């Protein structure tokens, strides 16, 4: 009986591990920059970890708080000019983390529908090529957070 229990546990663990392996992309530390009332664009940042052995791809990001969301990359050229490029997708190589952070890749949230306040949590939906959609909670960060 004891052996059967262990076998069941091993089986459950294997199934869970297999499930995790097939959708091994995780999104952490998602946050949205607080903006003053009346300003209707902001940026969403996050860390995307791919635990799979093959690369995955971020296809789109959506949030109810904005009319649309676009993936952008800020770069600075040799003359010190900052410019933004629209990116259709972001590749997440196997066993690696891609950071969406200030001054780099970010999701531009366009047409904010409501005031966002430091400390609030907003729902974000990320869509990956292989790992499907993932619902993410993003914290609104103020200037001193």
């Amino acid at each position, binding site marked *: 009986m004891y052996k059967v229990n262990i076998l069941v546990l091993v089986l459950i663990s294997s199934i869970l591990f297999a499930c995790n392996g097939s959708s091994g992309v995780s999104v952490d530390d998602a946050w949205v*920059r607080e903006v003053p*009332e009346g*300003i209707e664009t902001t940026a969403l940042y996050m860390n995307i970890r791919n635990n799979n052995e093959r690369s995955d791809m971020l296809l789109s990001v959506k949030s109810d708080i904005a009319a649309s969301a676009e993936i952008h990359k800020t770069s600075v050229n040799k003359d010190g000019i*900052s410019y933004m*490029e629209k990116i259709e997708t972001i590749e997440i190589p196997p066993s690696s983390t891609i950071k969406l952070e200030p001054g780099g890749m970010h999701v531009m949230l366009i047409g904010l529908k409501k005031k966002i306040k430091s400390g609030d949590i907003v729902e974000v939906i990320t869509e990956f090529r292989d790992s499907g959609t993932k619902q993410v909670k993003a914290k609104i960060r103020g200037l001193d957070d």
Partner: protein
Amino acid sequence: MRNIKTISIVLILIIAAWVLLGYKLLDLKEKEDFYGFYVGKEISDHTLMSHKSETVSLSDFKGELLLVNFGYTHCPDICPTTLARLRKVYEEIGKKKDKIDVLFITIDPERDTVKRLNEFIPYFHKDFTGLTGTEEQIKSVSSDFNVQYFREEIKTEKDYLMSHNSSVFLIDKSGKIVLKYPQQMLEAEKVVRDIKKFM
């Protein structure tokens, strides 16, 4: 007599050369001691409109230090990041922060009206000043700072984006641009160390 005259001229030239060399060495040392990049450029006076709907000239700030940044309020990433860093720099100065002003000059005067700047700038700090003007005024002031900007060809679904220099400039009490910080170099403690040398 003629020899004495020649020797005197040679001596004067040698002394002048040493004075020049000494000045140059001191000057170089001074430049190397800064965290920011030395600029040393005089700027002309420019008159713009503040977010409080007041006419403001750069010459109004003579005798004070200035931190100047160019950007636009529809910018989702770099401009708020820079202003948030400037807030840290300003707070880090502590009690002496009344000796410095922070100016944000828009490079998108078409959309950045006085009203719009008034919604945007005080959020970052109540002491910061947002400035706008006509296309010509903005072109003139940005050119004086050697700041380039242009509309990006790629538009967002709703609006257009701008490319621009995102550096922050430190202006000394005489109205000269002394130092420049690319926005990714805005480490509060190091920038404040520079600022205090000009106070």
